[in-house]
């Protein structure tokens, strides 16, 4: 009897301790995230209003940003590991993929839907306007011009980049100076579109006839006995001069990838063809091109997409004047210059529609490649 009582007592007291422990754990589980949040918030306020020397601010900002994300993972993992096994195994995957999915949803998935929605409303998204924005986007004179230009960018820009890339890859493959040549061609890849714009403005620089030309292109023209030209205002050729900058930047990318593919063409195949008396040109079109076809398609698609979204070059070089507008610069103009979010959204949706084939291609590739 006595023994039973004590055991009941101890049972009760152990229940009591359980409760305390549970409460304690709950408190800790709450306090830790709250403290984390407070520290992060203080950091945010400091960064927003702080007046420390700029180097200090820069360091604090970097530590705050990177550290904050790391702490987020540590704390949420810590919280989930406190749970029972069943809950833990259920929630832990979401600690891992949750933040990524949340950001993806906020920054890409929902915006797609929302932009489509805004496209049917007026400039401030307060009044439904039906298809008006899309009709504008598909019929307006400036828009049609930007479609035409974008098409030129896509066709001329992409094909020239790929052709030059392939040509240089093949030449380099047969040269002793392969490494240095490839480095030189590849170098512009490290340069921003804005930086490239500055460099090329200097190439295209124009001064009236009779004055000394400091732009390379006009200096050459004058030295050959011609009249200097204002390249960037010369419709419709100016678009091609802008495309040249793109080709200059992208050829290195095409070359690097195509060069890797070329090295994969088996030497025996080429030797056999040579013994059969095929000319180099026949070998090139009959063997090499078919062999690296897949790579050519990949490279072309990548450059196509980059070209489709081209913005910086036009924005820096001509600001879309003189008939050089493209879709992305039109969208920017609609958003910020005219403050018309309806039309800006419609243009963005058209951009999206043009990449849908690539989206499906990516998905198909992925599904073919593995049983997920």
């Amino acid at each position, binding site marked *: 009897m006595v023994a039973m009582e004590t055991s009941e007592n101890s049972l009760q007291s152990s229940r009591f301790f359980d409760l305390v422990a549970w409460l304690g754990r709950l408190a800790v589980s709450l306090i830790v995230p709250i403290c984390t949040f407070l520290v992060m918030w203080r950091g945010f306020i400091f960064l927003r209003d702080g007046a420390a020397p700029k180097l200090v601010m820069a360091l604090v900002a970097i530590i705050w940003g990177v550290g904050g994300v790391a702490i987020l993972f540590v704390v949420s993992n810590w919280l989930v590991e406190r749970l029972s096994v069943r809950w833990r195994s259920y929630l832990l995957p979401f600690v*891992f993929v949750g933040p990524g999915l949340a950001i993806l949803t906020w920054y890409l998935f929902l915006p797609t839907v929302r*932009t489509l929605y805004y496209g049917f409303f007026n400039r401030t998204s307060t009044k439904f306007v039906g298809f008006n924005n899309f009709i504008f986007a598909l019929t307006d004179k400036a828009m049609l011009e930007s479609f035409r230009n974008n098409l030129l960018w896509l066709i001329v820009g992409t094909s020239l980049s790929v052709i030059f890339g392939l040509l240089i890859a093949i030449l380099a493959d047969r040269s002793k100076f392969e490494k240095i040549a490839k480095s030189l061609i590849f170098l512009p890849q490290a*340069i921003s579109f804005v930086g490239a714009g500055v460099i090329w403005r200097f190439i295209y620089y124009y001064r009236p006839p009779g004055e000394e030309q400091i732009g390379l292109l006009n200096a050459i023209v004058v030295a050959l006995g011609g009249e200097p030209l204002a390249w960037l205002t010369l419709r419709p050729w100016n678009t091609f001069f802008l495309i040249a900058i793109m080709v200059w930047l992208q050829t290195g990318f095409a070359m690097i990838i195509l060069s890797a593919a070329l090295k994969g063409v088996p030497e025996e195949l080429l030797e056999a063809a040579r013994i059969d008396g095929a000319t180099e040109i026949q070998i090139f079109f009959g063997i090499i091109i078919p062999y690296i076809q897949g790579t050519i398609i990949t490279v072309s698609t990548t450059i196509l997409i980059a070209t489709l979204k081209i913005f910086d070059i036009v924005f820096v070089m001509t600001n879309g004047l003189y008939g050089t507008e493209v879709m992305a610069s039109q969208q920017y103009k609609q958003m910020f210059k005219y403050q018309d979010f309806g039309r800006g959204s419609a243009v963005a949706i058209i951009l999206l529609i043009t990449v849908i084939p690539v989206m499906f291609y990516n998905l198909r590739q992925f599904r073919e490649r593995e049983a997920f």
Partner: protein
Amino acid sequence: MSKKRQKLISDILVNGSLLLLCLIWTLPSLGMLVSSFRPRDDVLTTGWWKIDWSQLTLKNYDQVFSGKEIADASMPGGVAKGEDMSQAFLNSLVVTVPSTIIPILIAAFAAYGFAWMKFPGRKVFFIMVVAMLAVPLQIALIPILRDYTKLDLNGTFLAIWLAHTGFGLPLATYLLYNYISALPRDILESAFIDGASHFTIFTRLILQLSIPALASFAILQFMWVWNDLLVALVFIGSRPEVAVLTQRLMDMTGSRGQDWHLLMAGAFVTMSVPLFIFFMLQRYFVRGILAGSVKG
């Protein structure tokens, strides 16, 4: 003999055309580099190819970092200092470093989750990641701008970090998933038997094994963010306290159209960091570019 000659001719042809192409590709950058060392008057009066070696100077770089010298009689020495690029340089670093590390961290966690954990919706979510690879970021500008206006985030670094994270995340997750899911299964299984948690395995084991993939993506994303203009223009705005190098450089093309000497030095300053990475880490850089060619 004739075969030898043929070989010689083809060698000359190959190397000659290669040399010509390299020359064309290098000339623009060379012009910029030379001009950035020439004094103002020289840049404005003669072409850069007529270099006067004795005139080359570092003064342009000095002005780019300490402010343009403007003639002003009221100031000591007769010159006033204009805005400089050092703030923009710092801003670019503050924007780029977290915008590179944050997406990598988040994507690595997600990639591990997709590769090694079972949960409902795994397949659907990953298909969403793949579908988002090619989506042009233009689609997100207006909605996100509105969210930021509501949250009062416009013009803050946090705003642009998150934006770059969002836009870089599909590619990062996709690349890292490909890598992490291909790691040998038995490494993980033996770690599990030893009682390690997912978190420990991830931080101690997976992150270290994935360093090549992480580095490749890091370089790709770093270059992308450092060279970006559009996202910075939309979400940061042009306040000098926050404006990045590409924005400063763009402003200079407008307001300093005649200051070619400063513009060229400024352009070279913005390129210095990517060029440094390019030369130091070319192997990773190329690998990253090869891997990233699925991106939209």
